[in-house]
Each structure stands twice: as C-alpha cells, then as structure tokens.
C-alpha cells in the first residue's frame, strides 16, 4: 500500500512538473517537442530489459525481445529524427 501511494505520488508530481515545463515551449517547437517526448516514451525499453532479470520461458523471451526491438526503435528513431529537425531551425545572417 505504501508502495502504491509512493508510485502514484511520483506519477502526479512528474505530471505536474511536465505540465509547467511544456507550457513554456513556444508553438514553433511543438513538432520537435512531440517527437522528443515520443522518444522518451520509448523508455519502456528499460522495462523490457528488466524482464530478462528473471528466468523466462522461450515464449516470454520472444515477446520480451520484440518489446526491446519496438522500444529501441521508438527511442533511437525518435531522438534521431528530433535532432534532424532541430538542426534545420536556424537564423540567417542578415545584412542590416
């Protein structure tokens, strides 16, 4: 029960912190922001890795490996595409 309360509070606090951080992001950057947070949601790769801490049946291993592949695809692809996008945002040198 203590665990549950702790976990739920972590959830709520993080949500609140996220809320205030995101409010300050200008609309100009909404696409890269979404792409970056999308990459962060691939953090489930940790969960998938931790599945392998206990001995598993081969069926469970197969599912776990599939989860690892999906999640790393999400994380790496997400950060890479965000980097590509953000590189595009630049200010041109202007003659006065």
């Amino acid at each position, binding site marked *: 029960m203590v665990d549950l309360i702790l976990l739920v509070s972590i959830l709520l606090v993080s949500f609140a912190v996220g809320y205030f951080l995101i409010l300050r992001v200008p609309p100009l950057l909404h696409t890269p922001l*979404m792409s970056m947070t999308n990459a962060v949601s691939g953090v*489930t790769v940790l969960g998938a890795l931790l599945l392998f801490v206990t001995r598993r049946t081969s069926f469970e291993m197969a599912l776990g490996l599939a989860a690892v592949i999906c999640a790393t695809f999400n994380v790496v692809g997400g950060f890479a595409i965000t980097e590509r996008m953000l590189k595009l945002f630049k200010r041109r040198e202007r003659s006065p």
Partner: protein
Amino acid sequence: MNAPGRLVIDLAIILLLIVGVALFRSPRRARAGNLIAAFALLCAALMAFYHERLFAPAAVLIALSLGAGVGYWVAMKVDMVRIPSMVAFQNGAGGLAACLVAFVELSGEAAPLPAANIVGGVLAIAFGAVTFSGSMIATSKLSGILRQTPVKLPGHSILLSGLAVAAVVFGVMSGLSAPASTVFLLGLIAVTLGVGVVFSVRIGGADMPVLISFLNAGTGLAAAFCGVVIQNRFLIVCGALVGASGSILTLAMCRAMNRNLAKVLAGLDARLADVSESFFHTESVPPSEPDDDRSPLDRAAEAMKDAGSVIIVPGYGMALAQAHFDVVKLARDLEEAGKAVCFAIHPVAGRMPGHMNVLLAEADVDYEMLHQMDEINPRFKETDLAIVVGACDVVNPAAINVEGTPISGMPILHVHEASRVVVCNLDDKPGYSGVDNPLYQNPRAILLFDDARASIGRLSEALAAAQNDTTGGV
C-alpha cells in the same frame, strides 16, 4: 525499492531529463535539450545493464542493436513532409512495447504480484494496445494507405462503447484471477486493439493534430503504468512527463480550433456547413476593380510589385504539394525586391502541432520570420499583400462572421484584412470542414487555382519580370 546510492543516480538522471525538456524553450537550445534527454535515457539503460544480471544477454544485445539500427536508419531516411506519419508510427512502436512488457510481467510464472502492480499492468496493456492500433491507423491515414477522411461504421458509438465495456470486463477479470489468466489478458489485448482502431478511424483531416497529440499522451501513460507494474520509478517519471506533454498539446490544438476535445475525439461536428447566400449579400462588397479583365497572374504580379509588406500563410496544401522550398524562394525574392516579408503560422495548419514550422525550417527560412497567430493577426490590417499557400479553413472568414458552421468561433488568420490577397490553392472547394470560403468571393482576392508548387513558381517568374520592367533591365 533499491539502495540509496541508486536513488541518487536515478534522481540525477531524472534531473538531466527535466533539464533537457526545459531547454525546449528556445530553438537554439532545443538541440542541446534533445541530446541531453537522449543521454539521460542512455544512462538509465546502462545502469540497468550494470546493476542487473540479464539472462540471454547476447539475444538482448542483438535486439537492442536491431531496434536502434532500424530506428536510426528510418529516421534519417524519412522525408520531412512525412514527419507526422513517422512520429505516429514510432509512437505505436512504443505503445506495443509497453503492452508486451506488461503482458509478460502479468502472465509470467513469477511470484504473485501485489495489487498495485496488477492494476498498473492491466492499465499498461490497455493503454499500450489502444495507442498501438490507434497509431497504426493514424500512420496509415497520414501516409495515404487509408483515406484521410473520417470513416464512420454503422453504429460506431455503440460499437466503441461495447468494446470499451468489454475491455473493462476483461481487465477486471484479469486482475481478479491470480496469477492473471492468459486467456483474459489476451481477451483484453484483442478488445483494446479494437478500441484503438474504431476510435481512430473516425478522426480525420484537420483533426489529425489532435489525434496525434492524444496518442502521444497515451503512450506516455502506458509507459508510466508499465513502470508501476515493474516498480520502476524512472519509467513512471518519464511516462508521466510524456503524458503531460501530450495532454497539453492536445488541449492546445483543441483550443486553436475552438473545439471541445470530446467532440473532436467522437468525430462530432456541429451541423454541416451551409454558409447561407444572405451572408454574401449582407457583406458590403466593394465595387470590382476596373482592371478585372487581366489574368489573375498579371494582377498577382502587380500586387506583389506594389506591395511594401507581404505575409505568407502556408497550410497543409503546401506540404502536400511539397512547395515549401519554392515558397521560401519566393519569400527571398520578395525580400530582395525590398519588401518586408514574414510567415503567419496557424496552430493547426498541417497534420501535427507545429508541422509548418518544421517544413519552412527545412527550406532554410530564418525562424524569426515565422509568426504565430496571436502575434501576427493585428498586422494584417496594415499589410499590403497576403499570399495564401494551400490553406483554406484556417483563413476562412466565415469562422468569424457566420454562426452555426463547424468552424464558427475558430480563431483564424485574418488574411481578409490585408489590402490584397493572392490565394494559391488547388481549387475553390471548401477545406476539410466543408465550409465554403467567402474569401474566394472577396474582390480583393486574386485566385490562382492550381498545384501550389506550380503557382508559386509562376509568381516567382512574374515577380522577376515585373522587377525587370521597372528597372528597365533585360
């Protein structure tokens, strides 16, 4: 959970992540923010490797490299116009991963789990499956595999409610059976996959930015619940951050359309558009200009030549026609001709939040030239020329003047207040909302109906010719 030392390291990694997100306040720092967030996740993964002994480490490493390699390769290859579809696809992959992890954790032979884990696991499966199938539908719609228009099945709402009820039943049954029965869990997955499909097919066109943000939030929550089932605070924090971000963007998109989230998600529109004729008659129409017999292109060239200030308004049509490079070239030409040029970006222009900004950035436009709606709207009155490129609903004055249409009350870009308007749209058909655009009847509007890229190219040539005429050059 674990030793205090690990808590400190976990907190440090979480702090890094928060710094990364916080840096998204300015375009110059955002790049560092992205890399810092990526670094934080890398640290977290390395920690897991360092602290835990994994069974089958070789297979895990191969899976990691495979996912990373394919993810990176696809991210490097994808065309910027297709970003919304790509983000939806990656999002779906994340949802599927959360669903799989929770399924293995709940159905596994391991010791019976505490109630909190079971609730978290059932929710992770449900959210993961819904966002997976929903994202796949969104990707298919955005990449043209499915039609972008909303699909309404017979008894759509009843079907969706039925599936949702079935999902709750399966979820509760899985929770009550300990260890969770595989049959119930599979039932839950099947039903929630169905929910995702039925839910997403009904949303289309201009509502896609809302759907994408919503699914983004959903994957975040799936990851957070996944963290609850495996008792990992890092997953919970990351998931909640993403959930918050997705929720805010979802609400921002709805606000930008002045629509209720529930209505967008239910595919509900106010009764369909019928901009009554009386509207056109009551509006005081200024007399037509005498030089009407000239071609629209000539009139557009003259309007460009005479203009001191120009605002360009891009819409999804620009993305479809891949005209962004040509539009930016035209902007440069106009600037070189000594005109003040900037871009006006509507919050829901395109198919995901901020889509237009990325495309224009790709075409090498200075981001200081990109202005958001609230900032630019007061300036249309003093502007000589507005050039609309593939945008319809977001510049439709009926949103302000006419009651009872699906877009009534939606904030729009006030291009109709500019002295002249050149419209480079494909045709005079209404936009996604189905509301006729009175702008097309406005005598100050010059209509160039064609592929946006072709029209913009012609405008560039016409501008060059007009400049040469006045300077007496070749």
